[in-house]
């Protein structure tokens, strides 16, 4: 087994261009569990723990930018995040336990592309952008486009997730994050939902919704948003919204829950969010 330990981004990118199949190790909270379960370690690992300048949170030009190595505990307690992106802090606080939150990183949470990733629904409703960097270029794409399928992402073999950029949310919005786990702590989501809403008298002004653990990737519920846009939330509107929701999710029965439960529980928390109970 070969372990590379680059001390700066340039060094990392050089190694990665020579060793495109090497596995990138950040906090290790997902990877170590996977290696342990398979009882096989990868041949080549690039540990990025020394890339200290990838751990940052800053507010600049109407964006909050979070370095990819920023851990969940930092996100949970950071002032900028709590001020502008409160449900991202909430979501971070629901991840695992303190030890995992101290090790796990936002970049890893995205790169692992688990449909149950706790940060994903919040990031999706905040219109998060993933900033990727390689030897020759830097590119940005929407998080919803970064996910390509079950545990698959658009991350190139020569690339590194540099940061997550989030535009400051519009004024006056209400946000909420729901996670239904297998227990109250140390748990993986059976279903999760993030919502961002701004209601006006004449109807919904802004609505963004995203869900976890109900499809191969965390998903932004664009169709549902389109339907709700401008509507007044009557019982029948909410009921139609629930029907639309069922069409766009593809939950499965697995080790944690059932398809039926995921459908109904997600519907119920959507109703709860929309009706503001």
């Amino acid at each position: 087994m070969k372990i590379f330990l680059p001390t700066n981004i340039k060094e990392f990118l050089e190694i990665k261009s020579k060793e495109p199949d090497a596995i990138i190790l950040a906090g290790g909270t997902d990877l170590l569990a996977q290696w342990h379960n398979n009882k096989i370690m990868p041949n080549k690992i690039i540990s990025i723990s020394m890339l200290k300048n990838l751990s940052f949170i800053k507010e600049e030009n109407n964006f909050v930018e979070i370095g990819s190595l920023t851990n969940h505990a930092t996100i949970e307690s950071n002032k900028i995040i709590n001020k502008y992106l409160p449900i991202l802090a909430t979501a971070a606080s629901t991840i695992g336990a303190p030890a995992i939150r101290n090790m796990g990183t936002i970049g890893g949470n995205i790169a692992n592309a688990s449909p149950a990733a706790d940060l994903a629904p919040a990031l999706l409703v905040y219109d998060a952008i993933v900033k990727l960097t390689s030897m020759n270029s830097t590119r940005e794409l929407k998080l919803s486009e970064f996910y390509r399928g079950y545990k698959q992402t658009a991350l190139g073999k020569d690339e590194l997730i540099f940061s997550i950029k989030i535009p400051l949310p519009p004024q006056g919005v209400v946000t909420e994050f729901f996670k239904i786990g297998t227990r109250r702590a140390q748990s993986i989501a059976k279903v999760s939902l993030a919502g961002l809403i701004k209601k006006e008298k004449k109807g919904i002004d802004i609505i963004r919704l995203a869900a976890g653990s109900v499809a191969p990737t965390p998903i932004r519920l664009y169709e549902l948003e389109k339907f709700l846009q401008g509507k007044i939330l009557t019982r029948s509107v909410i009921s139609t919204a629930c029907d639309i929701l069922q069409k766009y999710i593809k939950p499965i029965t697995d080790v944690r829950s059932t398809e039926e439960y995921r459908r109904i529980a997600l519907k119920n928390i959507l109703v709860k969010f929309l009706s503001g109970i």
Partner: protein
Amino acid sequence: MYIGKNINRIDGFERVTGRLKFIADYKMDNMLYGLTVRAPVAKGKLKGIIFDKHFNFSDITIVTASDIKGENIIHIIKDDMPCLVKDQIEYLGEPVALIAAKSLKMAYEALRHIKVEVEEETPIMGIEEIVKTYKREPDSLTYFYRPCINKGDVNKGFDEASYIVEAEFYTGFQEHLYLEPQGMLTYQKNGKFYSIGSLQCPYYVRPAVAKVLGIKEEDVIVIQAPTGGAFGGKEDFPSLLAAHTALLCQKSGKPVIMIYDREEDISFTTKRHPSYVHHKAGVMKEGRIIALESTIIFDAGAYTTLSPVVLSRGALHACSVYNIPNVRISANAIKSNVPPTGAFRGFGAPQTLFAMESFIDTIAHRLKLSPYDIRKKNLIKTGSEMATGQKLTESVAIDKCLDRLINISDFKKKYESYKKQSKSRETETLKGIGIATVMHGASFTGSGELILKSKGAIQLNPDGTIEILIANTDMGQGVQTIFPQIVASKLNIPIELVRCPLPDTSRVPNSGPTVASRTTMIVGRIISLCCDELLSLFEKHFKDSVKIEKGFLIIGKNKKRIPFKKAAESITNRKPLYIEKQYDFPPDQVWDETDFKGTAYPVYSWGAIAVEIEVNKFTFEVRPINLYSVYEIGKAINPKFSMGQLEGGSIQALGYGLIERCDLKNGKFFQNRLQTYIIPTSEDIPEMKTVILEEPYSRGPFGAKGLGELPHNGVAPAIRNAILNALSIEINEIPITPEVILKHMKNRGLI
């Protein structure tokens, strides 16, 4: 006196500072690491074990069934479980061969180059499938044990009853999830085999290893390593594991260690028996139950192992704490193609008590009676006759427990107000409160203790120190501390003079297994008898009457005082004085194993539990808010430890009732890792208020009765009854996950 005092754990400092060496910390020169080659199907014929020609196996020790010099049997109750599969595979993961290598990495590498060829057959798996088959074609099933209990005339009772109430109950697998997985090390020295490991019953392991190796029992020495939890999971399984390490050790001539990783441990070691109970009751208008007919089915897994005794205890607790004049119980331990199910805290009682304690609330619900009133009308009292005809003579305290519980939990008020709460109100949660009243028979069932003939000893050393020599293991419950408390109090000497080392079969007599909530009550009595004997030996030695007071012997009428150390020096004459006693089985404890009649247990411990919950209407999650319990245990030798057992056991039972799911998927346990097998964390634990009552048992040391298993018996049904209170839905299966609640609500058209 150290009785009733919160003495700190003798091994506490070493444990919390990480200094204590567990079996996985052991290393020996030339030690090999063993792994198990396992069957790939749940049922089939073993056709061959294929070793990859391109892999170099020269450094790998390999053991298959044909290498076994003794018998290919793991000795437990009935000798039907092979040590390694010879022809027939009975469960997925059944050990087919063993390998050992210089490093664990090498061993894993070798394991990847071994293939097991099989001819697959159709297995039977899962309690639902077993029950379906039982109802359709019962003769096609294999029964390991089918005891019946009969009292009075059930049919007459049904005829006289105002109502007939029926219900069916299911419980699932439960994994012990002890902190420390299974582990064993076997080495040879001077022609003897030494097995040291994480285990509960050294004298179960010894004959099992001897039988497989084909050597004399005396040539096997079993030593308990500090053990990180067991809960019954290390009662029978270590016999198999020690046989495996011993076989590899015998073949290689080297020390061999096997430490299961968590996935292997969850996947292939014992679990709590899944169960099915059908109850039919004849009830009078005011709530008196006059007849109960029950069918009990336990999924025993692939081999007999401990199932007959687990089932017996289950059947004997099936009527719970009620005095029912007419009873007919037929119980069945049925074979299936999963790893043999085994001992787990409560030993069959949590399953049948879940059924009966849920059933009594079902009766109350359907007859519009209060759960408290119906219990009050049916509770057993001193003088009551159990289903086996046993007359209860002493230390019967369930009535007291219940009244105290009602008082501390404010049950009546809460129950009525939660029953009336509007289900449709725009709130997030609904509240509920439920109770359960339970007992646990302490020590072995029936004549078990008579057959065991347990012996314990104390050794007085010339320096005045005393060693307690028993085969009972400390697996967290505190044997190593409680026994010195008993001896130091019996003899009135400082506790610092008394030690209770971990058992080593070359040193300790066979005081029986550490199971069945028997250690303090039964073995504690034996050790008390040893202390009495020591006193009479002192009297013989000093040829006068002897008392001990605060570390001094008081001799004769003129009260001559001799320090205990001096007295010890004098009586021992430089040679340790060894005093051994056997358990004096109560002559009036008569048990008929064939008809299940007589005294099933010498005494019972009692418990009343109330759980208050909130059910989330959107997510169907159940959150326990308050857990009130009142337990009567005879005497709390060490109240802090007793509380630890009661609260810890309650949490384990909470997991059993609410979240611990272990499903079968193609013969494999689906939830087989810590990430997927979900137990409560501290965040899931409600506020706990626990009260200990003491009604001394005349034969227990200082009045103590069994305690360790009791808290596992009542929490799950109390939760179920709380959900009934909150939602008015009878849910007759555990764990009651949100998915289960949803299923039941859908079935009733509520969603």
